[in-house]
C-alpha cells in the first residue's frame, strides 16, 4: 500500500468532521463559516478524486487497507478503498461540495455548513469502513444531523418518523453487532466484527444478522413501505442539509458490502421476494410522483422509484443485473441531487416549490431550466447518459428469470419520464401563475451554481458515452457478488 493512501484514507473522513466541529463551535462569522466549509469540501473532493485516479492507475482497484493498531472495545479501525466504494467517495464529496456552493448565504447562518460537512464525513467513513461496528456507528451518525433538524422543526409528524427510522436503524445494527461479536468471539476471531476477517474465515454467522442488515439497508434506501421518513424529509426538512443525507447510495452500498458477500444463502432465499419488492417500490414511487404538485415531494418519490429499480437489479444476483443496480445507485445520486439542488434554488428565489404557483421561469432563468431538463433526461435514462446504461443492464439481468418485473420497470421508466417533463413544464414553461409573474427579481443560476450544474451534467454525459471504464471499476465487485448465485459460498475476499 502506498504512503499516500495511508494518509488519505483517514484524512478523507476526519477532515470534514473536524471542519464541521470548527465551523459549528469556533467560527462565528457566517462568511468565514462558508469559506472554511467550501475550502475543506474542495480539499476532500480533490483527495477523493486523486485516490480514485491513482488507485485506478496503479492497482486496478485492488484494496488499500488502513488498519489502526488501536482497538477500542471491539471497534477496529479498518478502512479500505476498493472497486465498490472507489467511485462513491469522489461522488459523495462532489455532491457535498455542490451543496455547499449552492446554499444561499442566508441559509448558511444556521450552521448548515457544519451539518453538510458532518454528513459528508460520516458518509465517507461509512463507505470506507470494513469493520461492522465502524460502519454501523457512522451509518447512524450520518442520519443524526437530519434528526436534529427535524427536532428543531416543530413538525411533530416529521420528527416522529425520523426518530422511528433512526431508532429502528440503531436498534437493528446494535442487535446485529452483538450477535456478530458473540459468534465471532466464540469462533476465536481476533477481530470478530471485521467484515474482511469474517469473509476470509469459515465462521458461519447466523442469517438473523443478514436479515437485520438487509432491513437497515432497505430502510436507508427508502424501499416501500419504509419510505415515509425519506419522502417526508425530502419535502419538508431544511433542504440543503437534508439533501446529501437523503440522496445517498449508502443503503444499496450496505447490501453490497455486508449482506451479499457474507450471507449468500440468505441472498439466494430472498432474491425473488426482493425483486418483487423492488418492482413494487419502483412502480409505487413512480405512481405517487406523477400526481404531486410539490417539486420537492415529487423528487422524493422519484428517488424512491429509482431505489426500487436499484434493488431489483441487485436482487437478480446475476452479472448484468448487479452491474446495472450498482451503476444506477451511483448515477441516481448525481441526477436526483442535481434536480433537488435546482428545486432548492427555485425555492430560495420563489419562496415555494408548489408547481401550481410557478411556471414560465425559463424566461428569467434559462440556465436553470436547461439544467433541470437535462438532469431529468439523464434521470429517466435518456440514451447517452449513465442511467441508460444502468437501466439497460438491470433489465437485461431481470430477463433471465423475472420477465414480469422487467415489464414493470419499462412502465416505470415511461411514467418517470412523463412525471419529470410534467414538472419541467409546470415549473419552467407556459405563461406562469400570477405568483410566478410577480417574481420580477427571480435570477438565473449564478457563478458557482452554474458551474456545479454543468459539472454534474458533464459527469453524467461523459460517463454515459463512455461507460466501459465505470463498469470496469466495478467489474471485480460484480464478479465477486455474482459468485453467490453460482456456488453459494462466501468469497475469499470481498473485492
Amino acid at each position, binding site marked *: 500500500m502506498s504512503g499516500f493512501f495511508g494518509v488519505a484514507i483517514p484524512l478523507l473522513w476526519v477532515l470534514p468532521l473536524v471542519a464541521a466541529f470548527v465551523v459549528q463551535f469556533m467560527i462565528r462569522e457566517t462568511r468565514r463559516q462558508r469559506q472554511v466549509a467550501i475550502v475543506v469540501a474542495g480539499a476532500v473532493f480533490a483527495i477523493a478524486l486523486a485516490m480514485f485516479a491513482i488507485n485506478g492507475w496503479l492497482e486496478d482497484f485492488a484494496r488499500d487497507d488502513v488498519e489502526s493498531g488501536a482497538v477500542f472495545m471491539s471497534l477496529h479501525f479498518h478502512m479500505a478503498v476498493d472497486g465498490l466504494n472507489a467511485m462513491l467517495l469522489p461522488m459523495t464529496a462532489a455532491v457535498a461540495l455542490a451543496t455547499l456552493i449552492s446554499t444561499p448565504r442566508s441559509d448558511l447562518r444556521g450552521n448548515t455548513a457544519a451539518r453538510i460537512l458532518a454528513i459528508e464525513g460520516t458518509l465517507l467513513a461509512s463507505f470506507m469502513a470494513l469493520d461492522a461496528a465502524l460502519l454501523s456507528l457512522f451509518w447512524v451518525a450520518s442520519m443524526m444531523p437530519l434528526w436534529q433538524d427535524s427536532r428543531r422543526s416543530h413538525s411533530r409528524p416529521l420528527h416522529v418518523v425520523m426518530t422511528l427510522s433512526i431508532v429502528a436503524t440503531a436498534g437493528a445494527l446494535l442487535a446485529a453487532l452483538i450477535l456478530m461479536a458473540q459468534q465471532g468471539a466464540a469462533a476465536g476471531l481476533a477481530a470478530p466484527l471485521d467484515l474482511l476477517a469474517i469473509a476470509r474465515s469459515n465462521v458461519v454467522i447466523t442469517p438473523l444478522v443478514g436479515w437485520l442488515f438487509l432491513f437497515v439497508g432497505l430502510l436507508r434506501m427508502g424501499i416501500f413501505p419504509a419510505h415515509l421518513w425519506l419522502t417526508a424529509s425530502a419535502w*419538508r*426538512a431544511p433542504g440543503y442539509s437534508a439533501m446529501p443525507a437523503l440522496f445517498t447510495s449508502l443503503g444499496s452500498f450496505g447490501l453490497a458490502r455486508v449482506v451479499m458477500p457474507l450471507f449468500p444463502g440468505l441472498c439466494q432465499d430472498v432474491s425473488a421476494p426482493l425483486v418483487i419488492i423492488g418492482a413494487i417500490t419502483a412502480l*409505487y414511487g413512480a*405512481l*405517487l410522483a406523477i400526481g404531486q404538485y410539490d417539486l420537492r415531494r415529487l423528487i422524493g418519490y422519484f428517488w424512491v422509484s429509482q431505489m426500487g429499480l436499484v434493488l431489483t437489479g441487485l436482487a437478480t444476483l446475476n452479472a448484468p443485473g448487479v452491474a446495472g443496480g450498482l451503476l444506477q445507485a451511483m448515477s441516481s445520486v448525481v441526477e436526483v441531487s442535481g434536480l433537488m439542488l435546482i428545486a432548492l434554488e427555485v425555492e430560495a428565489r420563489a419562496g415555494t416549490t408548489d408547481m401550481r404557483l410557478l411556471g414560465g421561469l425559463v424566461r428569467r432563468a434559462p440556465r436553470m431550466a436547461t439544467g433541470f431538463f437535462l438532469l431529468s433526461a439523464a434521470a429517466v435514462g435518456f440514451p447517452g447518459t449513465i442511467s441508460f446504461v444502468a437501466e439497460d443492464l438491470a433489465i437485461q439481468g431481470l430477463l433471465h428469470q423475472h420477465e414480469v418485473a422487467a415489464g414493470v420497470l*419499462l412502465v416505470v421508466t*415511461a411514467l418517470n419520464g412523463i412525471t419529470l417533463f410534467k414538472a419541467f413544464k409546470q415549473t419552467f414553461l407556459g405563461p406562469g401563475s400570477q405568483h410566478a409573474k410577480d417574481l420580477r427579481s427571480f435570477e438565473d443560476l449564478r457563478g458557482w451554481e452554474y458551474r456545479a450544474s454543468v459539472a454534474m451534467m458533464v459527469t453524467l454525459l461523459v460517463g454515459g458515452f463512455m461507460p466501459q471504464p465505470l463498469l470496469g471499476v466495478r467489474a471485480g465487485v*460484480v464478479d465477486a457478488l455474482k459468485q453467490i448465485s453460482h456456488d453459494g459460498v462466501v468469497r475469499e475476499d470481498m473485492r
Partner: protein
Amino acid sequence: MLPDILSAGFALAPVWPAIAAIVITALLLLPRRPSEGVVVGITRAAMWLCFASALCGLLLWFTSGPVDYRVGNWYAAAEYSFPLVLLFDGLSAVMSVFVALMLITTVRFSATYMHNEAGFVRFFLLTLFFAAGMQLLVLGGSVELLFIGWEFVGITSVLLVAFFHERAGPVQAALRVLVTYRVCDIGLLFGGLWLHHWLGTTVWVEAFAHVGEHPGGIAAVGVALALVFAAMGKSAQFPVGGWLPRAMEGPTASSAVFYGSLSVHAGVYLLIRAAPLIEQSLVARLMLIVIGLTTAVMAALSSQVSADAKSAVAYATATQVGLMFVTCGLGFYTLATVHLVAHATLRYYQFLRTPSALQDALWQQAALGRTESDEAAARWEGVALLRRRALYRLALERFAGEAALDRWIARPVMGVSRYLDGLERRFLALHSPNGPAAPLPTMAPDLGLGPEVEA
C-alpha cells in the same frame, strides 16, 4: 478498399449533425452568443456532409449490396454487451439520402423563416439533434440503436412543439406528445427485450436469419405486437394519434419535417425494417390492417371538418400513413416504401405552404371558380342530413378517442396517485398534535442566529 472507405463514410451520416450540435452547444457556453450566420453555416455544413455520407451508402449498396457494418461494443458487462452495428441495405441507403435531402431543404427554408426569432439557435440545435437521431434510426443495425435514434427524434419533436413556450397551448400539446411517445416507446423496448430473450440477439440481420429456425409462438406474436404498438404512437394511428393535430403548435418548418415528412413516417419505417419479424404473426398483420383502415377513415373525415389548414393537412397525413399500415399488413412492403417517400415529399411541401394557405385559396378561386373547401362541402352535402350531422359531430369530436383515453387511462392513473398520496399524508398527520386533518407544517431552516445576534 473502396467498400471500406464507403462504409466508413456512410457510418458518419449520424455523426456530422451530432458534432455540429456539440459545437453549437459549446459556442453557447461562451460569454458571447453565436450569430445567426455562424449557426446556419455550421448546420448547413453538417447537413451537406450528412448528405455526402448518405450518397456513400447509396454507392456502397450499388457496388457491394447489403453490408452489416460493426464498429464494436459500446459497453459490455460480463454476459451482456451493447453492439454498435449499422445495416446498409437498399432501404436504409434510400432513406438516409431522403432524410439528408429533406433536412438540407429545411435548413435552407428555416434560415429565412426563423430569422430574428427568439429561439433561433434553439431551433437549429434541435434540428441537428433530430438529424442525428433520424439517421441513426434508419441506419441502426439493431433494435437498441434504432431505439436511441427513436428517442432523439421523440425528444426533439416534443421540444419543438413547445417551441413557443410562453403560451399555454404549445406547452400542453408538447406534454401530450411526450405522454404518447413515452407510453408507446414501451412497445419498442419491450419488443427489443423480448426479441433478445427469444432469438438471443437484437441485431436485425442475425434476428432475420434465425427467425425461421425458431418458430416463436407467443414470443413471435408478442414481439410483432409490441413493434406495431411502438409504430402506432410515432405514426399517430388510432387510438393514440390525437397528438398529431396538437403538434402543429410548433414552427411551420418543424411541423413540415417532423409531422409531414420524417418523424411521422418513422413508425412505417420500423414496420418495413422489421418486416420478417412482423410476418411471423398473423395477429399483428391483421391488427395493422384494422388500425390502418380505422385511422384512414376517421382521419379523412376529421381532416374535412378541420377549421385550420395545418390541422387539415395533419389529419390527411394520418390518413395516408394509415394506408401505409394497411399495405404493410398485406405484405406489400415495397409499395409501402414508395408510398412513404412520395407522400413524405408531398406533405412536406404542403406543410411549408400552409402559411400561404389563404393566398393559395384565393388563387384557386380566381383560376377555377372554386376551392378545395368548396369541393369538400359539396361532398358533405351528398350525405343524408341526419347521417351527415352525426358524422360531422363525430369527426369534429375526433371520434372521442382522446376523451376515452383521458377518461379510462389518464384519469384513473392520476386518481390512484392522488388517492395513495392522500393516504400517506393522513397517515403521517396521525402524529400531528393538530389531528389528522391538519396539513404538515413547513419546516423553516434552523437559522440559529448566533450569540451576538441573540444578545
